[in-house]
């Protein structure tokens, strides 16, 4: 892509993209840490995750400020306009993803209370990795303005949904068999739901990336997505 005649415009766009990448990295890290805290029952780590969410919120505010400034001062058009709009929306999506990670971390002390292990907890990190990977891929697609990669992210959301369905069944079965653990497992159910939502949001990011890169909606390209 050619440079803008006005160099400061390039700098602004670059800064915006940098902020999104930074935000994405943070969100990814938060998911990983939350899952680790869950797995290990590490309350300190969980507290740290809850504290660090503020950083993501701060970056989101920064993205909003910058995007508004670019729109006001540079009057972006075509792909520039789409990119700024996408960045604005991606930032709010990433903020939501951060919130989900925080939500997972919040549940760590509630689940870890009892001495006995809850078996299905061992499959959740895999789902966490999968969701985290989707976020990662979506942001890579954003960085590379790669619409094909964005399509792949959207497609992988189906796998995550299937994963969620199977975990859901497993946890329900477990609850039926071990009525004592119902409250903790219910929390796990929410964790799984959060991870599924993170995947959906990663899909949303990918849709935005696709729109920014091509100017068309991904829905036109992915027919009959359930």
């Amino acid at each position, binding site marked *: 892509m050619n*440079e803008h005649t006005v160099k400061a415009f390039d700098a602004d766009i670059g800064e915006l993209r940098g902020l999104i990448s930074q935000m994405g990295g943070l969100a990814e890290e938060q998911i990983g840490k939350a899952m680790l805290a869950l797995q290990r029952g590490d309350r300190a780590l969980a507290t740290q995750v809850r504290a660090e969410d503020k950083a993501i919120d701060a970056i989101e505010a920064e993205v909003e400020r910058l995007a508004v400034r670019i729109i006001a001062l540079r009057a972006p058009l075509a792909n520039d*306009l789409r990119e700024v709009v996408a960045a604005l929306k991606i930032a709010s999506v990433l903020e939501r993803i951060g919130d989900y990670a925080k939500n997972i971390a919040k549940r760590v002390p509630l689940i870890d209370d009892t001495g006995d292990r809850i078996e299905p907890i061992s499959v959740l990190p895999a789902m966490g990795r999968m969701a985290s990977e989707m976020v990662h891929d979506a942001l890579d697609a954003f960085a590379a303005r790669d619409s094909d990669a964005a399509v792949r992210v959207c497609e992988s959301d189906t796998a995550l949904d299937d994963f969620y369905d199977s975990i859901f069944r497993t946890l329900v079965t477990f609850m039926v068999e071990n009525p004592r653990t119902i409250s903790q497992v219910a929390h796990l159910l929410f964790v799984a739901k959060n991870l599924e939502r993170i995947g959906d949001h990663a899909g949303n990011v990918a849709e935005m990336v696709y729109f920014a890169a091509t*100017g068309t909606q991904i829905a036109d390209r992915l027919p009959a997505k359930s």
Partner: protein
Amino acid sequence: MSNHPPKITATHVNVWYGAKKAIDDVSIDIDQDSVTALIGPSGCGKSTFLRTLNRMNDTVANARVQGDIRLDGEDIYSPDMDVVQLRARVGMVFQKPNPFPKSIYENVAYGPRIHGLASSRSELEGIVQTSLKRAGLWEEVKDRLSDSGTALSGGQQQRLCIARAIAVDPEVILMDEPCSALDPIATAKIEELIHALKGRYAIAIVTHNMQQAARVSQRTAFFHLGQLVEYGATTEIFTNPREERTRDYITGRYG
């Protein structure tokens, strides 16, 4: 976009200035009920193209036009076409506001008078009043119609020029960068006026201001080096242009 046939059809138009080719094989339809914006870098031929549509290029020595331009299916470059009548049907507003150094009334009345559009004084006054109203200038000048048109502000002068153009009741209005010499408020007034005139007149506007093209037009044509690079719905051109040259130009990446 429209169910009507296009008001003006230009097919394979080439224009030379002496040996220099200014327009290279341009084909455009201009719709009756929409505003068509012509954008492009300086010297890209957009103004030249605009001026071929009412044969203003005839006045330029050694300008040569080739191709087919039809107004309602009528070849405007055919020997049977009366240029004077053509220019009455296809009015023009210029870059620099250029009112005649006469009174406001005389400016507007001039066209109808030379074309004999009014049979009486009161009818002529009626035409002047309607034209000024339609150009959104009536309220500002109704008490000083005998003042000189050149004493008005730039924006008012330009609206006076628009009133002068619509006084002869044209079918098409061509505007050649009508706001380039105006301040933002005056520009906004002209843009609002273009909105109000849309539908009644087919309008083609050349502009350097892309935001303006985006604001006032329904269809946009991007010219570059005498060629028509892209022509389509304004929303498409400004959010998702198909051609890389268009995108680079409108996003400010043009070399």
